């Protein structure tokens, strides 16, 4: 065990897989010599050589298309898209190709690739360094979508994603790279070192895809969250003094429906939190699932706390970000309803 930040945990997952599996290769913009603009691939080229970790042209469609081709050959590429906001040029390769090749070839060809990308706001990145596009990918059948919230999960989930035989979109909450962030924009920046989930095994381990984690047990209301919003939900619980059960989904596709249903059946109340825009966001899917499976247990309408339906505004980052005050307000409303 050693203490790792989330970025170190991500790095460690790739290092472990590069040394265990000669089929794993890592590439993307600035990931080789430089080690990535967020330093996720720091030292990998030096340790494993240029053939295992290298720079690519600035071409997201090219990066994902090449990864698919390598996957067809039998390799297991792990590619980085520098910011999730820049994944759109690769959308055709992901939605029309990666997601469907197994199906259209009746299993003859598969796409065992992992597409890593930092997402989410909180760094004053404006509309092109802050987006949360997970809903675009959960809507595409054939893709898996994974989002960690701690260093321990980041490493274990990334290893599972790399080992997975289907394409995985692995979204990393960039605001959590160096410390747990609870959404208080004026609060001191915390480091991971005092957080229990920064204790990370140095070697290989898995956190299975499709298993949510109950990060706080409670009786009053269930809060469904992932990524940065898990920490915001915990802060909201503390700030409001409410006895919330906070569930970290960890993987959106495949989704751990049982854990969700069990919790909401117990509390009878549900708040869904994501940073992405509201309309057609993953929260809508979660709400539909909860009302279908927990209809007779629900004591109040389900609430969603999300980013507003606008682009991410640069100067209004903290008015846009669904922080703990908004989450706590929704929790109170749902508890009173």
């Amino acid at each position, binding site marked *: 065990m050693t203490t790792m930040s989330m970025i170190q945990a991500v790095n460690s997952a790739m290092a472990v897989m590069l040394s265990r599996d000669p089929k794993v290769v890592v590439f993307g*913009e*600035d990931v*080789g*010599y*430089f080690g990535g*603009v967020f330093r996720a691939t720091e030292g990998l080229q030096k340790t494993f050589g*240029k*053939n295992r970790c*290298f*720079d*690519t*042209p*600035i*071409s*997201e*469609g*090219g990066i994902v298309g090449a990864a698919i081709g390598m996957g067809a050959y039998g390799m297991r590429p792990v590619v980085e898209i520098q910011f999730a*906001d*820049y994944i*759109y*040029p690769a959308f055709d390769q992901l939605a029309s190709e990666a997601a469907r090749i197994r199906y259209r070839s009746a299993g003859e060809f598969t796409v065992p690739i992992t597409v890593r990308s930092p997402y989410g706001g909180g760094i*004053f*990145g*404006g*509309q*092109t*360094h802050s987006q949360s596009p997970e809903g675009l990918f959960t809507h595409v059948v054939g893709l898996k979508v994974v989002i960690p919230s701690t260093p321990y999960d980041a490493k274990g989930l990334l290893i599972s994603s790399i080992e997975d035989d289907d394409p995985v979109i692995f979204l990393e909450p960039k605001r959590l790279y160096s410390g747990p962030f609870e959404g208080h924009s004026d609060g001191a920046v915390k480091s991971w070192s005092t957080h229990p989930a920064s204790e990370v095994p140095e070697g290989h381990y898995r956190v299975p895809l499709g298993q949510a984690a109950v990060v706080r047990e409670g009786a009053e209301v269930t809060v469904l969250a992932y990524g940065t919003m898990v920490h915001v939900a915990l802060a909201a619980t503390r700030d409001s003094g409410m006895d919330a059960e906070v569930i970290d989904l960890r993987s959106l596709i495949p989704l751990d429906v049982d854990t969700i249903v069990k919790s909401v059946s117990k509390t009878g109340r549900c708040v869904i939190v994501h940073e992405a825009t*509201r*309309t057609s966001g993953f929260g809508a899917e979660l709400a539909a699932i909860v009302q279908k499976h927990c209809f007779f247990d629900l004591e109040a309408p389900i609430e969603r706390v999300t980013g*507003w*339906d*606008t*682009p991410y*505004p*640069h*100067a*209004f980052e903290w*008015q*846009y970000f669904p922080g703990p005050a908004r989450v706590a307000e929704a929790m109170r409303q749902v508890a009173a309803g």
Partner: protein
Amino acid sequence: MLDSRHRANHADHALAAQDVRAAVLELRIPEPAARAGQPVDFSKLKLSAPGAVRRPAVAAVADSMHDLAYGLIRVLDDNGAAIGPWVPELPSAALAAGLRSMLRTRAFDDRMYRAQRQGKASFYVKCTGEEAIAVSQALALENTDMLFPSYRQQGLLIARGYPILKMMGQVYSNTLDPLKGRQMPVMYSSREHGFFSVSGNLGTQFIQAVGWAMASALSGDSRIAASWIGEGTTAEGDFHYALTFASVYRAPVILNVVNNQWAISSFQGIAGGEAAPFAARGIGYGLPALRVDGNDFLAVYAVTRWAAARARANLGATLIEHVTYRSEGHSTSDDPSRYRAADEASKWPLGDPIERLKRHLIARGEWSEARHEALQNEVKQEIRALQREAEASGTLEANTTHSPKTMFEDVYKDMDWRLQRQRQEAGF
């Protein structure tokens, strides 16, 4: 049978010519000539002597000038003299105005960079060492021509007389910000100045410029368009879209690739610049393609006038590669000492654009070191005064900006019920 004999012949031929043999395949991954701590090496950079590259007639067919994509059009020699067929007709007053715009751009960049370091802004991008491209091209084009820039062409706005105070307002996201705090610093927009809203997503503007030019042609207009991307961005699909549409429709547009050698940490070879110059990409699309010394104010002016004259005469688009050097970090988020030799900028063989234009004006007998220094000081004072004025309206850390209520506007022409309700929910 025939087919296999043909193939065998073909293989024999190749073997005889080069003695190539099948081998265990290996992947080539390009490496720059020098990394941090290594000696600078620009020996692979292909230069032509000033004045050496020919100037085809404006009406020449694209097929007849492939050599221009591989040469380097230069006008200014080391002594500041303007020589060769590309010497433009430019009155000294225009050159002096260009020099002033370049100095203002550099001074503005320096102040804003420092302000970011002091926490007054979230982010900044300098164009230091590349000022001649934007400023000279703004001068070479008509003010009514439409510009589709990247984040590194602030010189276009400054040369077109856009108020620097407003630019500072945007950098600080304060109440002077014409974009209401919605956009990052450096991603400007000014319809009035024919400057299209800068996108953070690389390359998108290249094909948009072609579309604007197509519309101008469809409308029987006289205005042309121009766009700029970095050499790294030529790897995006948008580059191919732009060249294809520009070629097919003979769109009146100037497509500029600013090759400043580095795209964050990856050198121009990662974008394919070792196999062939970026200008040479144009040949395959049947476009005239020029490679120009981007630090030579006069050469940039001359090629832009040439390309604009073609566009205005319905002879279509031109691809221009500007060979220059990004003297500073990619942005305030970058630390170039991690990946490139620290003294590369000072050893760049094409020098500094401001120094070179200064030398030329002095050689013309129109300028002096003393006058230059005076101008430099005047410009610095002006920018400092503007900065004080801008900061009086707030900085990012002071959080004095437009009302957050405005963030719900302009998503659509008319706000729909969702946004109205969300604005209420947000408490505005």
